[in-house]
């Protein structure tokens, strides 16, 4: 089980005071906080072996390259990818999705269909809209019900041999819903469709086995995984990555360049043009090792207890409605209070030191579904506590009085 007191000591930011109050950080779905080991890894990189990688014969370059490539293998092992060639460092989930979406413009044609769920983050919508604009392919929406649960039968009914791509989040950032991606993948594959799963919100909370899932593409962001900003991972099956054209041109991703002909490098370098985020890649490995030391079983169990507790406590507040009531959720609660605008509540909570997110959470179609301008979202991590939840509940009551 989680020793939360000890764990909190790993995160220097949790000591922050906001407006005289102890910071309560419930915005983990936007960005997770960073343990000291990760911060130290970054400092250590710049203090001891900062150097451009892959092409240097000197020691610093070799050390940096080794650390960077070791990190790739840590990630490979963490997600159980078959080969480290399948692990592409990106600048984040958005970048990863764009690599794939842009690559498929060569392989889709007019009338082809792609399926998006209704609960996607804008990053898993807009690149596909751009793809469809280029190719004439058509977007079909996999609907969800009033609990924010994907309607699997409906999905089955729109998935056909016209379907070329299926794009679904593993976990919805705005609702916390865990989608049945095993079923989605198997339905899609039985129609020969390729599946990209947006794992930005899943990877920090759930142990992921890519080979077992048999997923085609999977994307995550480092800054939600206790890692630094500006780094992420695109996983793709080697055969698919081999097939896709390179996304960016530049150094690193080429084998030979003449003005008449350029040959591209092998995986994973083909997709890693230019000097990468070296410190970010290295520190992401450290972050994932840190998560693994705590253990995903413990994390899931503890976060579930926070979710249950906060759901129970929040529902005691009069007029509070929770959006997303699947029985398969990560520790995310999106809610509104009758006749109070989320922005107002968020502002008062901030004054009380509580960081929640308000708004559409980059998932406007979800807001349209529920016909609301936005929600207040409290998203928990394993360093949060029930005491913090109690303080938030009291703060909400106070804000309610002020705003009523």
């Amino acid at each position, binding site marked *: 089980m989680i020793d939360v007191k000890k764990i909190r000591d790993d995160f220097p930011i949790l000591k922050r005071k906001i*407006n005289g109050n102890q910071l309560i950080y419930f915005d983990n779905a936007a960005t997770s906080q960073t343990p000291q080991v990760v911060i130290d890894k970054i400092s250590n990189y710049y203090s001891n072996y900062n150097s451009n990688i892959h092409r240097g014969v000197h020691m610093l370059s070799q050390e940096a390259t080794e650390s960077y490539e070791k990190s790739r293998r840590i990630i490979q092992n963490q997600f159980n990818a078959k080969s480290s060639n399948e692990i592409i460092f990106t600048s984040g989930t958005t970048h990863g999705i764009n690599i794939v979406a842009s690559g498929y413009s060569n392989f889709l044609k007019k009338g082809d269909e792609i399926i998006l769920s209704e609960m996607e983050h804008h990053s898993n919508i807009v690149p596909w809209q751009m793809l469809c604009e280029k190719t004439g392919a058509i977007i079909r929406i996999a609907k969800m019900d009033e609990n924010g649960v994907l309607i699997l039968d409906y999905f089955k009914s729109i998935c056909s041999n016209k379907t070329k791509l299926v794009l679904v989040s593993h976990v919805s950032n705005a609702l916390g819903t865990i989608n049945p991606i095993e079923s989605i993948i198997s339905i899609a594959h039985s129609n020969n469709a390729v599946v990209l799963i947006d794992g930005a919100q899943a990877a920090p909370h759930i142990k992921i086995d890519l080979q077992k899932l048999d997923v085609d593409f999977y994307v995550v962001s480092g800054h939600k995984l206790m890692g630094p900003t500006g780094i992420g991972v695109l996983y793709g099956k080697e055969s698919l990555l081999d097939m896709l054209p390179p996304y960016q041109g530049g150094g690193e991703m080429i084998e030979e360049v003449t003005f008449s002909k350029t040959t591209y490098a092998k995986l994973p370098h083909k997709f890693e043009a230019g000097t990468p985020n070296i410190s970010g890649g290295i520190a992401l490995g450290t972050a994932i090792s840190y998560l693994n030391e705590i253990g995903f079983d413990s994390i899931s169990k503890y976060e579930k207890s926070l979710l249950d507790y906060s759901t129970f406590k929040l529902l005691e507040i009069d007029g509070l409605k929770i959006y997303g009531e699947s029985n398969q959720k990560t520790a995310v609660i999106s809610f509104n209070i009758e006749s109070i*605008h989320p*922005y*107002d509540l968020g*502002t008062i909570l901030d*004054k009380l030191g509580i960081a929640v997110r*308000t*708004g559409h959470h980059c998932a406007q179609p979800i807001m349209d579904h529920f016909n609301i*301008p936005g929600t207040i979202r409290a998203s928990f991590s394993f360093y949060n506590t029930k005491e913090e939840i109690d303080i938030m509940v009291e703060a909400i009551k106070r804000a309610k009085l*002020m705003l009523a």
Partner: protein
Amino acid sequence: MKSIATIQKEIIDEFSLFDDWMQRYEYMIDLGKSLPIIDQKHKTDSNIIKGCQSKVWVYAELKKNQVIYTADSDAIITKGIIALLLRVYSKQHPSDILKADTSFIDKIGLKEHLSPTRANGLLSMVKQLKMYAIAYQTQLN
């Protein structure tokens, strides 16, 4: 008519009476509640200010060389801010509006609303108020 500087001074004086953020925010919320209601026909999509997390509608007319603003929002704290802004900017000559600055917001302890986060649309609001002033200024020239 009082000058913009005078009104800003008055607001600063009023807010100086408050001991803490609670009192300031409660006052803002009261101001929000008392914001005169914008004419429904001006609450159109084209009058919405982009870049605010809460919806903000602003409309302006020129009467006797003064810009008369009306506005609304779906969030009450935002309405409070609007009320403060309108108190300062409304019923002023366009050229005076264009010269005015927003440092009083900082002085009354609401600096956080000046931050460049797009979530907080105060800067967008001020920009929109000034856009109207520019337009009417041109009309007057």
